[in-house]
């Protein structure tokens, strides 16, 4: 395949960036999208140019590190995949592909396609845990039976990989799907109930502080989420938040 890539190049957080075009040839449809970028970078290095910086690690769709905005969509045109799981067979010979970083106020660009998502970590630090110490003396794992249906829903929420596609997709740069998923996981499990009130309040407060926008129910995040995290999690977080507010 022969392609034209239009890629966001930005030297660092302070300098201005711009789109740069790169023609590329000999791309096999079986290559993953990131392997195609590897090929581009190899070419750039041989030409004595600086390669395109991008985040990636596991390359099997679970670490959540890769984060490209491809042809106007987070993680590109395929559904339920991360950028690393996207394959070139989804594109046609001669295509022009636009590649940008995940853009949001709370995700400043570090270089080229690499953004700083530490705001996500800080939201988790505000309450995304159960306050339990490691002792070896906690109660037996089977002491509290958990309804299968609830355990499964908690798992579905916990499957979030923290990539930020929801934020990049949302016109308000809202992180409600990300935060809602974590709040839901714990709200659905007995272990999470003890701290439920504080958790949702603290996480939402941090989310606002980081500069994420609000939810206006367009549902775009759910469509673009590589792990299919459901919008129901936002609704559940809103219920949790409301009941926490009533408790004071």
């Amino acid at each position, binding site marked *: 395949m022969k392609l034209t890539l239009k890629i966001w190049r930005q030297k*660092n957080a302070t300098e201005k960036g711009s789109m740069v075009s790169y023609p590329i040839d000999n791309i*096999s449809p079986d290559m*993953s999208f990131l392997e195609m970028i590897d090929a581009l970078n190899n070419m750039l290095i041989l030409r004595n140019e600086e390669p395109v*910086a991008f*985040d990636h*690690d596991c390359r099997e769709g679970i670490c959540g590190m890769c984060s490209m905005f491809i042809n106007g969509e987070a993680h590109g045109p395929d559904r339920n995949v991360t950028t690393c799981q996207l394959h070139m067979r989804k594109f046609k010979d001669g295509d022009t592909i636009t590649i940008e970083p995940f853009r949001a106020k709370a995700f400043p660009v570090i270089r080229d396609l690499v953004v700083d998502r530490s705001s996500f970590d800080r939201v988790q*630090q505000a309450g995304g*845990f*159960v306050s339990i110490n490691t002792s070896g003396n906690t109660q037996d794992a089977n002491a509290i*039976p958990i309804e299968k249906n609830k355990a499964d829903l908690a798992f579905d929420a916990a499957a979030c990989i923290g990539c930020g596609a929801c934020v990049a997709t949302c016109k308000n740069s809202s992180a409600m799907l990300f935060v809602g998923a974590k709040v839901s996981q714990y709200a659905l499990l007995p272990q999470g109930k003890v701290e439920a009130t504080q958790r949702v309040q603290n996480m939402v407060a941090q989310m606002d502080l980081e500069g994420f926008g609000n939810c206006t129910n367009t549902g775009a995040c759910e469509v673009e989420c590589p792990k299919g995290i459901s919008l129901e999690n936002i609704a559940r977080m809103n219920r949790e938040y409301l009941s926490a507010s009533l408790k004071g």
Partner: protein
Amino acid sequence: MAVLDSKIPEGPLADKWTQHKNNIDLVNPANKRSIDVIVVGTGLAGGSAAATLAELGYNVKSFCFQDSPRRAHSIAAQGGINAAKNYQGDGDSIYRLFYDTVKGGDYRSREANVYRLAEVSANIIDQCVAQGVPFARDYGGLLDNRSFGGVLVSRTFYAKGQTGQQLLLGAYSAMNRQIGRGKIKMYNRHEMLDIVKVDGKARGIIARNLVTGEIERHSAHAVVIASGGYGNVFFLSTNAMGSNVSAAWKIHKKGAYFANPCFTQIHPTCIPVSGEDQSKLTLMSESLRNDGRIWVPKHKEDVQAIREGKKKPTDLTEEQRDYFLERRYPAFGNLVPRDVASRAAKERCDAGFGVNATGEAVYLDFAAAIKRYGKELAHVKGLDEEDVSLIDKLGKEIIKSKYGNLFQMYEKIVDQNPYETPMMIYPAVHYTMGGVWVDYNLMTTIPGCFAIGEANFSDHGANRLGASALMQGLADGYFVLPYTIGDYLSDDIRTGTISTDSPEFEEAEKEVRNQLNAFLNSKGTNPVDYYHKKLGKIMWNKCGMSRNEKDLKSAIKEIQELREDFYKNVRVPGTADSFNEELAKAGRVADFLELGELFAKDALDRSESCGGHFREESQTPEGEALRDDKNYTFVSAWEYKGKPSEAVLHKEELTYDNIELKTRSYK
């Protein structure tokens, strides 16, 4: 020659750990506040250790090269975690888990360590459930289990095909709580580039901020290396792109012995290599072997027809298929340990029965399981058990609920639907049992420097059983290191803060800067990946699934030449004071180029076959691995002496007082 002291406590096996905990020194809570600990790596071992040490009151500095601790490669572990809970009432016990693990490791692991691992395994599950880890449950609301290779009980806890993710997010949540409390200072996008020793003790590290390029000095009273395994020395592996040996290798060069480097796990069920541009291999969880049957065609004509696209696998009748694992190992069938399954697949492919264009793939077939589950569900629901299309539909639903994410991954990569046609799989490098040598306290031969998780060597011998890596990572981090490190740190309560203005830090920083500058100033022509790929090819062809003296000797020579060429002709663009992934990669590949040689040297030295280490010179007439207990019942611990070829071998003899050494049989 120095004698390695494993510091295994006295007393009966079952009492060793309890007695040891009772006898070691503790640090009182007030004194913990004035002690700093560095933890490098935030996977299951590093993340759980950092959180637990911080809970205890130590000041923890935690480092990861990724943009968040949640991305460490433990996240990608799929199948599950073992624990001797005996919830299924199928005869499991601490002893049985211990026995299976020692046997599975082909009698090359340390008895006392493995027993302790089995002992704390149950605590791990309790701890994770208390953290809110959503394990799979049955309809009664209790925890569900499945089986993994090499065992005859069902002791594996799981969360779909994403167990590692859920356990890691549990450890990450525990870390987050401590980061929020200020007890862990987190350094994301930082890479450790050297360890600093003061008066012979580990007292800090030199790290590079991967965003700004700044070189930083960090001091502590102890340094914990939890940087994972070195499978990426093969370039193509199931590891993440960034997984590397550098932290472990840097401490090796400063005095930590490196143990059994040649013990590598080649995992039987991975998506086969497709082309030269491939950057990594993807694992299909061992849990699939609960329900998938592995086969190749019985006749070469069918192999040919399939390769040419004239026949489909589903066209072959039962009689035309060779379920080679079931044929060769009737007792364990498709659930033999990984090393055995991998070699059996290689044997069939080498004999010309591989089912794809490259001749390096076998089938993993779910048709029988779909039928079985479909019938079961139809029976439960009172539906027509003879309705073929209904059975098929119901069966696929069950398979989807068990392995949905794995099937989706397969479909995205291969562009074939595994519900309709068997998966094609082939072995790939997955895990390294070898690693930094540690004593019973998980301390390396550098005082104050500890190694945990995959980075150390201790528990899996020559072959790791499935679902045991997660167990070991969390056992080390939650339940072992937090105790044993106290014994060491009890001498440091009066030391006070360690200064970073010492000549030792100065010297270490200078060395780091020199190396980085050397890469940038080498105006060569080849990108870093060029060397990494070449190294990977040497390793795979000559130090892979089967090894022999001639190939190993030539591998050593080739790696030495490649390394020389690397320093002359590598091209690293950009600058040292900016985000520069090529520069980071160059450092990692430089270390792989040294480790690779030690790996081959170790494989050459061990002329027996054991576990994943198969020496062609040492096999039974049936082609099974032949151990040499008389000459090789020891751990090879290598001491660095300037370059890998000069490394000196130290032997830790292994004694088995509670297990009889037997030929490992799964027939």
